[in-house]
């Protein structure tokens, strides 16, 4: 039986990205002077989860990097090493490498092998600089393990053993990864399974496969070297029974005097913690295959007949470290000698059982109970600690009540609820014609329905909402890296990261915000020397703030840098031939930097200065239905304010009527609406009409002209909506104002095509379709109409 793992890849990718992001976040918040153990543990957990996942899915390159990363992290969290700033840098770099590898597995470009090697070497060096003993534990996993023989002994659960097809499946599955020599085929009467497997695959693979059939801790996998396990052949049944019995019932079956029994010697010494350890190991399966000290990470030293029993033992122990449950058992055994240490660390053929077995357990105080004492072997520590971590992870997952749902499903739900709202509105409208006395109950029901649908719509919409922290969380890293590169000291603050925004907007706001942050760092905040000279704190502050204001989300990027240089901007604008003068208001001057290609930077750096950017920022944000504003005061800093609608799916609109049709004007574009007087309307060149509003002359555009509708001709009987588009303000003449609504935006292109002057359509309460105006396009159309008339 083989399971197609690829179906789970997506989940792995998503989870790994989350873990990486989480890790980075924690690293950035880490206080290098006195790191909190909690944080270190959390970082370790993230790295460990990535390792476990990548191992399970066969992404060995990622396993290799996380393995090294984890080695160092583990020493840190055990306070064997002290955290240094370069370690944090190395961790961040490792995170980048992992991300690159992840992208590669998702079909992206190849990860830079040199960078991978470099980071592994760096981490290893950091970890081993003070502790060379950890080398083995942190050696990268070799890509291809040599082919070797395993002796498999286990007892299948009765229900599996009784089913011939299940047993067939099991052997077929084994045959896929190894050459199988069946020694004992399990059946209903005797569930024992014994086989010799020859394979180049990792032990973990075999265990994975068997894990579908029986408890991982019941699997016995060993190298059937005659010299090492001679006693197996002498009493094969006993081995299976005995080893098995060891887990279940720690009876002193093995003789302590016989050196050939290796670690089993200690079984009688450790009767008590055994069952507990087995219990604890539940759910620890995925983890153990990655435990350092597993065969792949050992030098592939085959056991020589001349090796001392201890050396073989060591190898055997290395195997056993892998055994889920087995590990917890052995190194938890009170008073257990440090079995694996000598062979693993030094691996000499000369090690003898006597001294190794006599090595006392170290660091007893570090452990919560005598049953969980640590040995001083780092590889074992990692493995064991890893298991504990896994226990925690299991608990954490249990407490985590969120589920992953595809956005598509949520959107479908939103659409359906939208229709429900429309249906409800139609019902309400029909019911309003009924006699309120006779249809009292019906009307009450409809009232209730309308309340419920509104609540439902709100909750459904909130599914798509994500906190701004999704965006903000990436900036500490950007700021850190950039500040380092620019030689500036910057502290980043975020305010209101719980402000929620539609997922679609969250994704699209990231790039413009990154740009603004980079700009603030590069041009805004000064170098420490300049800041000190100006009497400011050498450390600059960059603040990201998000908040709700009315129906909009306001995102602010603030720095306490030098502010915009008005004279400089004007000078540059003149150089570029832009129409400027010294009397312009600050607001207008600041708007100049949004012009395409505008940059006041003297030197083009790789950070900024090319002048592409602010115009893109502005265009992107306007594309989202938002606005950008700048405020700046020399010497005190700059503030960029972005206003965004709450969601892309819903729009606040003013509905206007023209010639019997309803149009929606996005409320963000509306400046005011008023009743025009005849003498406010002036003509220019005979036909182009202008409207005089408080000293401003605005082009007067009748919507009925633009769309060829039979609208009201008499100006005094209609209304004017003053709108502001990309190209400035305009007065749009409509027949009537109908009201203000929140409308669900529907695409016209889905079944039709883009209509000039319309940005989409929506469905009104009465079930009819209304068009949403694209104000900028309407102004363009209106002006073009006027020009055509003039030309004609």
């Amino acid at each position, binding site marked *: 039986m083989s399971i197609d793992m690829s179906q789970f890849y997506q989940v792995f990718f998503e989870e790994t990205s989350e873990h990486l992001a989480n890790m980075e976040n924690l690293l950035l918040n880490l206080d290098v002077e006195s790191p909190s153990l909690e944080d270190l543990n959390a970082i370790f957990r993230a790295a460990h989860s990535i390792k476990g996942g990548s191992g399970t899915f066969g992404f060995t390159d990622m396993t290799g990097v996380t393995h090294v990363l984890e080695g160092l992290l583990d020493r840190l969290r055990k306070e064997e090493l002290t955290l240094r700033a370069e370690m944090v840098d190395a961790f961040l770099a490792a995170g980048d490498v992992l991300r690159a590898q992840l992208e590669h597995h998702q079909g992206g470009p190849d990860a830079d092998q040199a960078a991978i090697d470099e980071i592994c070497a760096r981490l290893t060096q950091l970890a081993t600089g003070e502790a060379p003993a950890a080398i083995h534990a942190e050696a990268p996993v070799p890509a291809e393990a040599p082919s070797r023989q395993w002796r498999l002994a286990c007892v299948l659960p009765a229900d599996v053993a009784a089913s011939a097809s299940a047993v067939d499946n099991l052997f077929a599955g084994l045959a896929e990864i190894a050459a199988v020599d069946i020694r004992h085929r399990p059946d209903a009467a005797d569930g024992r399974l014994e086989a010799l497997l020859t394979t180049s695959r990792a032990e973990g693979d075999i265990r994975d496969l068997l894990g579908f059939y029986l408890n991982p801790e019941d699997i016995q996998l060993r190298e059937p070297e005659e010299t090492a396990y001679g006693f197996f052949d002498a009493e094969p049944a006993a081995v299976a029974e005995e080893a098995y019995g060891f887990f279940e019932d720690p009876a002193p079956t093995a003789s302590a005097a016989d050196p050939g029994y290796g670690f089993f010697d200690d079984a009688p010494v450790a009767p008590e913690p055994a069952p507990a350890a087995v219990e604890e190991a539940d759910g620890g399966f995925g983890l153990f295959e990655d435990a350092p000290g597993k065969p792949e990470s050992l030098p592939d030293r085959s056991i020589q007949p001349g090796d001392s029993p201890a050396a073989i033992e060591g190898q055997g122990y290395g195997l056993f470290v892998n055994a889920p449950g087995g590990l917890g058992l052995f190194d938890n055994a009170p008073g257990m000698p440090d079995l694996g240490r000598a062979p693993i660390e030094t691996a000499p053929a000369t090690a003898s059982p006597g001294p190794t077995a006599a090595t006392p357990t170290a660091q007893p105080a570090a452990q919560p109970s005598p049953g969980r004492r640590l040995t001083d072997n780092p590889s074992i520590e990692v493995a064991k600690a890893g298991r504990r971590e896994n226990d925690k992870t299991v608990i954490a997952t249990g407490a985590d009540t969120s589920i992953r749902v595809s956005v598509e499903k949520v959107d479908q739900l939103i*659409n*359906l609820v*939208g*229709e429900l709202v*429309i249906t409800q509105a139609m019902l309400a409208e029909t019911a309003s014609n009924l006699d309120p006395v006779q249809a009292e109950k019906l009307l009450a029901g409809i009232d209730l329905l309308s309340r419920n649908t509104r609540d439902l719509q709100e909750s459904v919409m909130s599914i798509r909402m994500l906190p701004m922290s999704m965006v903000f969380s990436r900036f500490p890293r950007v700021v850190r890296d950039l500040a380092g590169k620019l030689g500036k000291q910057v502290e980043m603050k975020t305010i209101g990261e719980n402000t929620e925004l539609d997922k679609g907007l969250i994704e699209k706001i990231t790039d413009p915000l990154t740009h603004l942050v980079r700009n603030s760092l590069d041009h805004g905040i000064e170098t420490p020397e300049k800041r000190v000279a100006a009497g400011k704190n050498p450390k600059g502050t960059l603040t990201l703030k998000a908040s709700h204001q009315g129906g909009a989300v306001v995102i602010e990027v603030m720095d306490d840098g030098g502010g915009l240089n008005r004279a400089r901007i004007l000078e540059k604008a003149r150089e570029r031939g832009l129409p400027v003068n010294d009397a312009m208001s600050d607001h207008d001057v600041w708007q100049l930097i949004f012009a395409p290609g505008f940059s006041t930077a003297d030197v083009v750096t790789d950070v900024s200065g090319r002048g592409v950017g602010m115009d893109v920022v502005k265009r992107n944000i306007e594309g989202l239905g938002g606005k950008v504003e700048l405020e700046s005061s020399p010497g005190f800093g700059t503030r960029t304010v972005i206003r965004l609608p709450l969601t892309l799916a819903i729009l606040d609109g003013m509905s206007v009527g023209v010639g019997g*049709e*309803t149009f929606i004007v996005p409320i963000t574009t509306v400046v005011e609406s008023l009743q025009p007087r005849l003498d406010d309307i002036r003509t220019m060149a005979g036909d182009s009409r202008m409207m005089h509003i408080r000293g401003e002359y605005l082009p007067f555009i009748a919507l009925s002209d*633009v*769309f*060829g*509708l039979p609208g009201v001709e008499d100006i005094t009987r209609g209304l004017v909506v003053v709108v502001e588009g990309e190209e400035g303000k305009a007065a749009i003449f409509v027949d009537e104002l109908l009201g203000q609504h929140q409308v669900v935006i*529907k*695409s*016209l*292109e*889905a*079944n*039709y*095509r*883009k*209509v*000039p*002057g*319309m940005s989409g*359509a929506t*469905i009104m309460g009465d*079930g*009819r*379709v*209304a*068009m949403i105006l694209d104000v900028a396009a309407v102004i363009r159309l209106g002006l073009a109409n006027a020009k055509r008339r003039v030309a004609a």
Partner: protein
Amino acid sequence: MDIVDSSGVPASGEYLTFTLGKEEYGIDILKVQEIRGYEAVTRIANAPPFIKGVINLRGVIVPIVDLRIKFNLGEPTYDQFTVVIILNIGKRVVGVVVDGVSDVIQLNSDNLHPPPEFGSILDTRYILGLGTVDERMIIMVDIEQLMTSQEMALVESAAA
């Protein structure tokens, strides 16, 4: 609904026939999503006259084409007997206004004749053939070709 046959080759199968004025037309029934009465549409500014506008079909915005105007057939009157055939073409939903839906017929290649080569408003490119059923002539239209054609101005990419 998935489109089963989009080859455009006259094939035997079931066809929905409808009338425009005195003429009878047939379209592949697998392209038909539903048939409904005409309801008020929302006009689309500056669209050709045969595009009546858009309607809200259970939350989906669907454009409505009046084939009578397009083909200059019959009187474009809109009353309770006016029928809209909602078509599923590719991934799009389009409604066409016709005078009436008459029948679902079986046609095979035996009683399907190639269209004569002469100019008409309806380009012969969009005619699969002429079918005969009980002395009636049925013009078999390749509705998918027609609806995605440039002259219908329904699809953006086709216009390019």
